[in-house]
């Protein structure tokens, strides 16, 4: 396929994804624990301000806020997932591969165990603790990896990330054993979800997520070069170690903000890049936006399902993404083989 055909194909793919996102958002507004007719929903969405909003209006605005949250977090995780897969040349890398989810979980569980309290900067206290934990653990991973003398800095980062992930897992278990009365709250927070979070929280997390996304796009060419290996990439004029540090750092920032918002939701960051690669090809300048769109769609749909399947009880969103993502992944492996496997 030549360049022009390529561009058409990509254009179609983007168009399709945008349409799918629009459809998902519309569904998210229409469906929920409370039955609303489409007419009611539409009218409520565009009802004027000032007058006392009807119940329907409040519900629709709530759903809108939630859909925005889900789309933002989904896009953020998917873009970061694509970045980490590129940085480590590993099709199984996900946004949490250098340890941010473990630290975020520890921060959140610690905050829950210490009881409710006021937050800051728009984040709830738990969110803030999760954000700090996520960033902190990424920092530790970098320090540990830098201190080792492995030849490949990619391997040392991955190993340090895995080790720290296990460490934080253990710490979380310890905190939950000591304060096991808070098990329910902690467990549900860890499973991930958007309950209790709204637009103010999104506004607080948005700068970090946006910064991460822009950095990801800006690093498209570097990620393309990294795909042939560190040595060749160096011979072509780039600096793999520095790139991994800077780009990975921005991606970790974005992931930490997303986790602070909604807990560590799995599969979105792993599966979306693969889906996007099928649609628009491996070049990162196209891959990253396509992955972001796919992630947004996936998470909005998962959240809608989580809210409606056993209404009024909400299922954890992380369980929904696994239910959707895992079969897709298995299907893909069985049928074609993963990108990157020979």
């Amino acid at each position: 396929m030549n360049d022009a055909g390529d561009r058409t194909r990509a254009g179609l793919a983007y168009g399709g994804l945008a349409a799918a996102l629009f459809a998902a958002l519309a569904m998210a507004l229409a469906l929920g624990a409370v039955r609303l007719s489409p007419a009611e929903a539409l009218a409520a969405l565009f009802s004027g301000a000032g007058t006392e909003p009807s119940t329907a209006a409040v519900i629709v605005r709530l759903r809108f806020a939630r859909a925005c949250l889900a789309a933002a977090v989904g896009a953020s995780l998917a873009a970061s997932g694509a970045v980490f897969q590129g940085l480590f040349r590993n099709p199984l890398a996900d946004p949490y591969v250098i340890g941010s989810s473990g630290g975020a979980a520890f921060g959140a569980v610690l905050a829950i165990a210490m009881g409710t309290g006021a937050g800051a900067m728009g984040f709830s206290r738990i969110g803030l603790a999760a954000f700090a934990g996520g960033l902190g653990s990424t920092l530790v991973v970098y320090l540990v990896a830098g201190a080792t003398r492995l030849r490949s800095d990619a391997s040392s980062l991955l190993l340090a990330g895995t080790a720290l992930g296990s460490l934080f897992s253990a710490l979380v278990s310890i905190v939950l054993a000591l304060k096991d009365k808070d098990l329910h709250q902690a467990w549900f927070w860890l499973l991930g979800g958007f309950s209790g979070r709204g637009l103010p929280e999104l506004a607080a997390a948005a700068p970090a997520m946006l910064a991460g996304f822009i950095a990801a796009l800006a690093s498209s060419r570097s990620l393309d070069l990294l795909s042939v290996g560190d040595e060749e990439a160096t011979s072509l004029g780039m600096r793999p170690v520095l790139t991994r540090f800077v780009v990975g750092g921005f991606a970790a920032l974005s992931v930490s903000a997303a986790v602070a918002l909604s807990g560590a939701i799995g599969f979105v960051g792993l599966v979306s890049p693969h889906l996007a690669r099928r649609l628009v090809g491996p070049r990162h300048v196209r891959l990253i936006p396509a992955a972001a769109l796919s992630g947004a769609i996936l998470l909005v749909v998962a959240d809608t399902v989580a809210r409606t399947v056993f209404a009024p009880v909400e299922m954890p969103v992380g369980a929904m993404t696994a239910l959707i993502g895992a079969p897709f992944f298995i299907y893909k492996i069985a049928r074609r083989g993963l990108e990157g496997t020979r």
Partner: protein
Amino acid sequence: MIPAPSLPEADPCLAPKPLIEARGLCAGYGERVVVGSSTFSAGAGKLLVVLGPNGCGKTTILKTCMGLIPALSGVALLGGNAVASMKPRARARVAAWVPQIAEAAWSYRARDIIAQGRYAIRGTFAPFDETDAMAIDDAIDAMDAGTLADRRFSSLSGGEARRVMIARALAQETPLLVLDEPAAHLDPGRQMELMELLSSLARSGKAVAVSVHDVNAARRFADLALLVGRDGSSVFGSPDEILTHENLENAYDTNFIHGDHATYGKFVLPVSRKQRKAD
């Protein structure tokens, strides 16, 4: 090994500035010295071949000159500047590297791989323009890779992949090309084709440094030769000076028949391995 005579270009005023140069360069990994104290250089328009038995350090010395491996001692220079003090992008403006094996982690097309060569010139952010497109197309034509350009890089055969990588190096538009055993696993005809291509590139003004296995091809096409021995020692000079009976037999630990053909020129044919002298 018989020490080499002085370099052919004795007059510094006439000699072109060397693009790749080593002065007493010791190459190796960590504690292990692979090649000890070698000195050589090649300037524009010269084809330098690096010869020696397997494992003697041909790849190591070339990677050290490229700055991909730190030197143990001595100096490596690219375009007259010490490699150790050059940033990767500056090095990539002088020298283009063609490795022996290349794998892309994702399903890039050959054209995308060739386009990677433009990074050194454009950097991370600057968008590509017509000059880049032209350079890429020229490189594809030069390597006769038109039919390969839109195929998946991972689906290419070894020889096809190597053509693509050389095209990438050409797209990089550097004065120096460094290739690591590009003729490995190629059919004899294709080997000759490749050596002719490298020779013509040298004629057109580039400096080319290439490690080869085939002594005969080296002698036919090379302007300069670096022969690396099993013990890490090396000799450098013109092919006639360096590729003597004694040097070759010692380096390769092999008995050769030495011949001279009217059309082909001087050649060697391996007969048998030398008996190892008891130490």
